[in-house]
């Protein structure tokens, strides 16, 4: 069971800060991230790529996206 970061409704730079904090906390594994804007979605994907995490899936849901990232 991976961890969940709910970044919905937060303005820059908080979604990326929250995800980064979670990445540093769990080091590896799976993180499920909820965002509500395309900007946050892009920023989270960009962060994942720069920190060596793989974006497993992006699903539209509710008023935003559910992003799953993973590091083995």
């Amino acid at each position, binding site marked *: 069971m991976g961890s969940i970061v709910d970044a919905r*409704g937060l303005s*820059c*730079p908080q979604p*990326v800060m929250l995800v*980064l904090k979670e990445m540093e906390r769990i080091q590896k594994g799976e993180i499920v991230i909820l965002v509500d*804007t395309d900007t946050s*979605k892009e920023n989270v994907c*960009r962060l994942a790529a720069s920190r060596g995490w793989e974006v497993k899936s992006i699903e539209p849901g509710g*008023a935003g996206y559910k992003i799953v990232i993973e590091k083995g």
Partner: protein
Amino acid sequence: MGQRRFTFFSTRKGIIVSGAVIGVLATVLQKFGNPPNMGVCVACFERDIAGALGLHRTEVVQYMRPEIIGIVLGSCLASLFYGEFRPRGGSSPVVRFILGFFAMTGALIFLGCPWRALLRLAGGDGNAIFGIAGLVVGIWIGTLFFEHGYNLGRSQSTQKTAGWIMPGIMASFLVLMLVFPQIPGQEKSGVLFYSVKGPGSMHALLAVSLIFGLIIGFIAQRSRFCTVGGIRDLILFRQTHLLFGIVALALAAFVSNLILGQFRPGFENQPIAHSMSLWNFLGMVLAGLAYTLAGGCPGRQLFLSGEGDGDAAIFVLGMIVGAAISHNFGIASSPQGIGPYTVPALITGLAVCSIIGLTMREK
């Protein structure tokens, strides 16, 4: 569209193109009549709008700048076209209003937003270096607050009508301009104020300004161009994505200025600027701090307000009111230097932003 991770404009090339387009269009607007080193300045132009509405009566800075109208409407169109128009709000609106207010106070002490700081530098105005240094320090202070838990709370999705308020205001401004067009040599046309002399009297044709604004708004909505974000993300995350946009804006404007014969290096007698370095620096510290606490540069706040973000819209309205009071109270600088009440306003602004940064934390 939404499921794609990156569109062209969210790539490095995309952000570079965005910055370059703003740099080139701004310098070309100067050629077409906009004030020198002020092709597009979000702070100065919102201040001119405050003057056009009669909120302040500084005669030389009154014009309903179509660039600002175009930027908001261009962003609105892009967000509608790509399915990103999303009415939202409720993240500490009154705090954002005050942040907008003091962001404008700081900007008018320096005489420019971050875009104009870059345009001034690209035009050879050495005083911009102190402003940009102040901006970086202000943003750095802002990141310290974020690292210690600063948070304005979450926004919520809201009704469609709420998202349309800011685009609606801008569309109304355009209608006012068309109903009450400028009459040469006259200070007033119907309800609108116009400048007969000074920077407010210098402008490109309405249609040109509007179309250039629409292009900037459309492209920057797609790329999320943000000057404050560029410096902030470098400090917080060592990420350079948005920074490329800043560099592209400055370089493109510099090359464009060379081609158009608009590059005049120096510190003294630069257009619509003063050379009080300390106040140029401190003004931008205040502005940079306020922008960072509000989540983005004044241009970015316009783009966000166009895509339905009511919190960004409140920040913009705070800036317009801040411009009016800065001029009415003698806080804003002029080419002669700072105003009689610049210093107390600057101290108040830094104190208020610091209190907000220290006390607005996640519960």
